[in-house]
């Protein structure tokens, strides 16, 4: 048994209209068959199916507009022929469902939805509100299957707790969750009567730091492991959780020859007195800021379902704290800043971050963030974007590599720059242009 879902046919597609079904219940389909025509804001498209089997039921009639991810049809696949949709039919009392506690009975004036008697019984059992179910039976009547599908569609929602009553949260826990941006629905209560306490909120704030290092692979590189959790971890944990939940990340990497940049820096620093010397980090930041200015799709916020590019580049810098923890304050308008000034700002920011004296405006104003993990020996960073930003740029360590250029092989210091970007705001093409710009800028360090 499989569901055939309304697909996403473009990064910006949120819903589609079923214009024509090309199959009917009972039809056999093979992987790759065109089964439905869908109209989006931009185009009409034919949609293929990726399951082989028999169309059991069409759930969305022609002409109806539904969100991406909505089940359009049920397919009885070869592996599980005619298996009934997995529903808790054996359990006696109706399971508590999100819609169960309707504040008031449907008003008597509302027309009674047309439904079959078995559909009504099933709706009562499953706690489904018939008014919210689309009927596919005779004359649009709601069938038992319609009810079950409606219940199924609801199933992935977070399980309601306390029989759908208001969450029991202590005032302090509520305050803390607000401060740290933690969704109380994700917290398990351990206090009196199962209430959520401040300690419970703090435990939820912690797990990213604890769990991430054990992930098999992937975008956990950023999380320092084996260090005591600092107070700063809580908000970061909530933010990172949200990022991975909401943002469709894509990742690109590019190797950059650093010989010119480092040679130039060495010569430059020889001219500079000790307190004015510049770190390679500052060069990387400046190149990133300029590139972000040139490719605005990676610089800004994704808010309210849309991307808002930023005119200035406020460069967030991920700074690890000495006792563990991470903050990412921003250097405002970094692309317009001379390199020496950028270095001074970076120095100041690191010092203040580690002394716990950052300003709120610096914490919330970043439009793109850079994390440099080269000093930890990391080669490649698969970053997690700071919402509502749309890109995170990572730098690994500088290593000597064989490098071919103009037909000649040599050994060069090489760094890998990576981009984690929000696919809702940009595509790989623009992301690639951004990284190429970073690489190009680092070849002309004197202009940075």
């Amino acid at each position: 048994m499989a569901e055939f879902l309304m697909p996403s046919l473009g990064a910006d597609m949120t819903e589609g209209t079923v214009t024509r079904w090309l199959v009917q219940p009972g039809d056999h389909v093979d992987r790759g068959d065109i089964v439905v025509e869908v109209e989006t804001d931009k185009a009409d498209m034919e949609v293929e199916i990726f399951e082989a089997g028999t169309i059991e039921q069409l759930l969305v009639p022609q002409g109806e507009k539904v969100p991406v991810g909505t089940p359009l049809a049920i397919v009885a696949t070869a592996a599980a022929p005619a298996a009934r949709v997995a529903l808790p039919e054996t359990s006696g009392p109706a399971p508590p469902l999100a819609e169960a506690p309707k504040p008031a009975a449907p008003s008597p004036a509302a027309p009674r939805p047309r439904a079959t008697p078995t559909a009504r019984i099933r709706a009562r059992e499953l706690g489904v509100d018939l008014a919210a179910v689309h009927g596919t039976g005779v004359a649009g009547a709601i069938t038992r299957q319609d009810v079950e599908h409606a219940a199924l569609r609801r199933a992935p929602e977070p399980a309601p707790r306390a029989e759908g009553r208001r969450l029991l949260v202590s005032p302090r826990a509520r305050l803390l969750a607000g401060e740290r941006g933690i969704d109380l629905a994700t917290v398990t209560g351990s206090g009196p009567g199962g209430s959520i306490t401040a300690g419970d909120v703090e435990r939820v704030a912690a797990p990213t730091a604890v769990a991430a290092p054990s992930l098999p692979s992937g975008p956990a590189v950023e999380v320092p492991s084996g260090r005591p959790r600092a107070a700063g971890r809580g908000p970061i944990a909530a933010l990172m959780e949200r990022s991975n939940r909401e943002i469709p990340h894509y990742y690109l990497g590019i190797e950059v020859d650093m010989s010119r940049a480092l040679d130039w820096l060495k010569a430059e620093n020889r001219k500079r007195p000790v307190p004015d010397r510049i770190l390679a980090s500052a060069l990387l930041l400046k190149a990133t800021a300029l590139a972000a200015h040139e490719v605005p799709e990676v610089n800004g916020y994704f808010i309210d379902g849309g991307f808002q590019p930023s005119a200035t580049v406020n460069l967030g810098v991920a700074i690890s704290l000495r006792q563990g923890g991470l903050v990412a304050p921003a250097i405002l308008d970094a692309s317009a800043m001379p390199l020496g000034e950028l270095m001074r700002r970076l120095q100041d920011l690191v010092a203040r971050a580690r002394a716990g004296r950052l300003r709120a405006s610096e914490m919330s104003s970043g439009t793109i963030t850079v994390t440099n993990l080269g000093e930890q020996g990391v080669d490649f960073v698969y970053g997690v974007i700071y919402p509502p930003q749309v890109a995170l740029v990572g730098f690994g360590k500088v290593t000597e590599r064989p490098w071919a250029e103009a037909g000649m092989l040599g050994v060069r210091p090489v760094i890998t720059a990576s981009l984690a970007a929000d696919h809702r705001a940009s595509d790989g093409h623009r992301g690639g242009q951004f990284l190429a710009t970073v690489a190009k800028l680092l070849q002309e360090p004197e202009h940075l």
Partner: protein
Amino acid sequence: MNADEARATVLAVLATIAPEANLSELELDVEFRDQLDIDSMDFLNFIIGVHERTGIDIPEEDYPALETLAGCINYLVAARPAG
């Protein structure tokens, strides 16, 4: 500057960089980086701190000589303040 003064100077600067560290346990010949959780920004601030306290101009090429406590002491004892 003698060896005791040099050691005292180095430890005083390190205390501002890594205030949480127990510097009395610092080993002579192990790099600060491996003992104190120091990154390049910290190291630059260390060099600046030593420069400010001693007046010695430390060129970047000499940085490797300053990566251990013993190295720092030798370097500072041998160096002459600028000007």
